[in-house]
């Protein structure tokens, strides 16, 4: 009888996926809190509905709220994925894999959001009030790519970690 050689393979993907989804959710919170609310460089629709009176500010604020609600859901889903990964014997419990996933997730958020919202749909730009809006947008994308590369390097280093989570180790 043939055995499936994949059955005993360590599977890092569920932990990477959990890290990526949580990292993207937290990256969304960083964008929303630091750039929308504290620095007030842009809002969700500020290139389409410029914030120049209270009504337009409130419309943007409402869409910002919906964006925050969505990244909150994403973070919760990522936590559920992390819980699932932690209870599996085939998933090595590696801090490097998870942190690599978190960093890659933040980078993925910047790249995907930057390409779709900034470049393709033109909903807003990183620094709406700067004369060099394109430079800020490209910097945001470059920072995202840098995070993706750093996360990927950490995930690769974590492939050497093979110990399963303590609660699912065979006694």
């Amino acid at each position, binding site marked *: 009888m043939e055995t499936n*050689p*994949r059955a005993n*393979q*360590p*599977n*890092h*993907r*569920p932990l*990477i*996926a*959990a890290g*990526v*989804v949580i990292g*993207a959710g937290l990256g*969304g919170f960083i964008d929303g809190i630091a750039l929308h609310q504290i620095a007030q460089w842009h809002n*969700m*629709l500020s290139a389409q509905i410029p914030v120049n*009176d*209270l*009504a337009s500010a*409130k*419309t943007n*604020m*409402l*869409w910002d709220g*919906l*964006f925050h609600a*969505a*990244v909150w859901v*994403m973070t919760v*889903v*990522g936590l559920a*994925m992390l819980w699932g990964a932690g209870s599996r014997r*085939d998933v*090595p419990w590696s801090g490097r894999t998870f942190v690599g996933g978190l960093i890659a*997730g933040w980078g*993925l*958020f910047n790249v*995907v*959001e930057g*390409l*779709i*919202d900034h470049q393709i*749909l033109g*909903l807003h730009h990183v620094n709406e009030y700067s004369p060099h809006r394109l430079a800020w947008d490209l910097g945001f994308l470059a920072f995202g790519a840098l995070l993706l590369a750093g996360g990927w390097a950490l995930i690769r280093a974590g*492939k*050497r*970690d*093979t110990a399963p989570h303590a609660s699912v180790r065979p006694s």
Partner: protein
Amino acid sequence: MKRLVGLALVGLLSVPAAGACPHCRVQAREAVYTQTFVPNAALLLLPLLVIAAIGAALYFSSPSWAGPHGNQPEG
């Protein structure tokens, strides 16, 4: 005394916020919750949907053949 001053400040600063343009709030809600709300929301949340799809694909995909040190399994 400090508490009283703090409470007075909170009260003082909250007055303009609480009374700020109630009709602007209504105007904003009316501008957002229209018949095109669902397609608009889907468009706005498109980047998050793309990332969620990537995460789900990664979570449910089978592990690669490369072993923990990048070696191929024998046999």
